[in-house]
């Protein structure tokens, strides 16, 4: 049975991380200033991830451009943080992203889902590039499932932008939607045999190149 959470800042302070990750109801609403919430993130292979004060004076997570040492026996272009150890079949992840001053800012993101281990996961790639895509890594081998071919995201170092991953089941088919600033920007229906399993969710960017402030993170599940 899937555990449910209630991660409301005041309650979490009382319940602690363990209780927050095992009891309560959806959605999981992340407060960057809350140490209990900070502990729900697992940066992989040295991915930079810290809590900072953003340009508007509010707490936010920050992914810098520092190198993460991703093993070479998998897709190593992205470094990422995993959010909770809960495996979700149809996750929905909302976040706001503001480009950092380091590197190129935030011209793209990798939103990870169905993560099993570092050599097996899926991701969407909203980007300031025609390489926008839905892809997966199977036993360390990268496979593009769908190449969207259009720019759906543009970097912004002044204003936060909304980004949403939505995996759902519709008319008996599994699909993944990408929303940018509230608008459906990319959608893909998985073909038989390539449907994502239940797995962990993560937030990533290009290794050594991009940086962003991330906040207003909300994780929920669309359907069981």
């Amino acid at each position: 049975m899937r555990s449910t959470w209630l991660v409301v800042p005041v309650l979490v302070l009382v319940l602690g991380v363990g209780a927050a990750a095992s009891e309560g109801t959806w959605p999981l609403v992340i407060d960057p200033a809350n140490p209990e919430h900070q502990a729900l993130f697992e940066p992989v292979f040295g991915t930079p991830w810290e809590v900072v004060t953003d340009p508007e004076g509010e707490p936010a997570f920050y992914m810098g451009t520092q190198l993460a040492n991703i093993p070479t026996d998998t897709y190593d272009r992205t470094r990422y943080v995993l959010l909770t150890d809960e495996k979700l079949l149809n996750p929905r992840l909302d976040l706001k992203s503001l480009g950092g001053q380091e590197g190129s800012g935030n011209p793209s993101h990798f939103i990870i889902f169905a993560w099993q281990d570092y050599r097996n996961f899926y991701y969407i790639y909203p980007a300031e590039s025609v390489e926008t895509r839905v892809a997966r890594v199977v036993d360390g081998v990268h496979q593009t499932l769908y190449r969207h071919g259009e720019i759906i995201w543009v970097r912004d170092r002044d204003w936060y932008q909304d980004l949403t991953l939505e995996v759902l089941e519709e008319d008996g088919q599994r699909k993944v939607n990408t929303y940018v600033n509230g608008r459906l920007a990319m959608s893909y229906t998985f073909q038989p045999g390539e449907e994502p399993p239940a797995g962990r969710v993560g937030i990533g960017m290009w290794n050594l190149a991009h940086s962003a402030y991330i906040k207003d993170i909300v994780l929920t599940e669309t359907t069981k």
Partner: protein
Amino acid sequence: MVSRTARMQPSGKGARLGVLLGLALALSLVCALPAAAGEGTVSLRVCTYNVLRFQGWPEDVAREQLGTAASRRLAHFTDVFGGLDCDLLAIQEGGSQQWIDRLAANMGMEALFLPSPAEFPGGILSRHPIVEARPRQVAERSWEVPFSRTFGAALVDVAGRPIWVVNLHAHPNREDLREQEAHILADTLDELLAVAPSAIVMGDFNSEPGGPLHEVLVERGFVNAVEAAWGRTVSTVNSPEGGVSSASIDHIYLSADLAGHLVSARVVLEPGFMYPLMFGPDDWVHSDHLPVVAELEWVPAAASRQ
């Protein structure tokens, strides 16, 4: 980079040129074409402004004085544009769609965002309804393609008169790309003018009159507003040595049917826009460019028959 101390003590040819140009241009501010204001007329103030991503200039000084928080900068530039009081505004280096949308919302104007293959999007803001939008679509990210900055058009209904507003930002240094941009402008204008004959083409041409973009317009009967008002061009770029440089690269062109309604045109040289001739270490201005403003008035056809 010029040191702060050096900039505090401008000297040499550049400084003298800046002083002379500044005086000449300040004088030009008090001149204008004969006004034609009257009852029942339609007045239209048209502006173009390269806003340098709403950062202020020089950027290091502006960063210290204005800060980097977007909300504060938005409030500042809302005041700046409020002072210009434009009915139609073409923005170059407009930061992002959120900048254009938020600025328009603050000013109660409609907005058309114009994307950029590079990092220089633009926008068209209008107090009149935008009835059709034709932004140039971005298919790839590149600084080295025609209109890598921005290009697009909006059809605006000005008191019953449809007018195309074209905003362009040409390539800064590659003449071959500006040639290609001129071809695109020509093709686009021919399409637009077949829909409605009135058009205003404005923006950062990154070139003086006589270049290929300008020729496309002249061949189609367009008139440079500042040239029509003063018989010459006026510098539109601030100089790091104080005052303005000699570059006249921001322009407003009016189609032949609108040119006859031109009342005045000018480059805005007021404090805050023009870099002071004798500047101090804390002096900064809204942008490295200066706004160009043209004012038009006409009597609507229905009113003229009465």
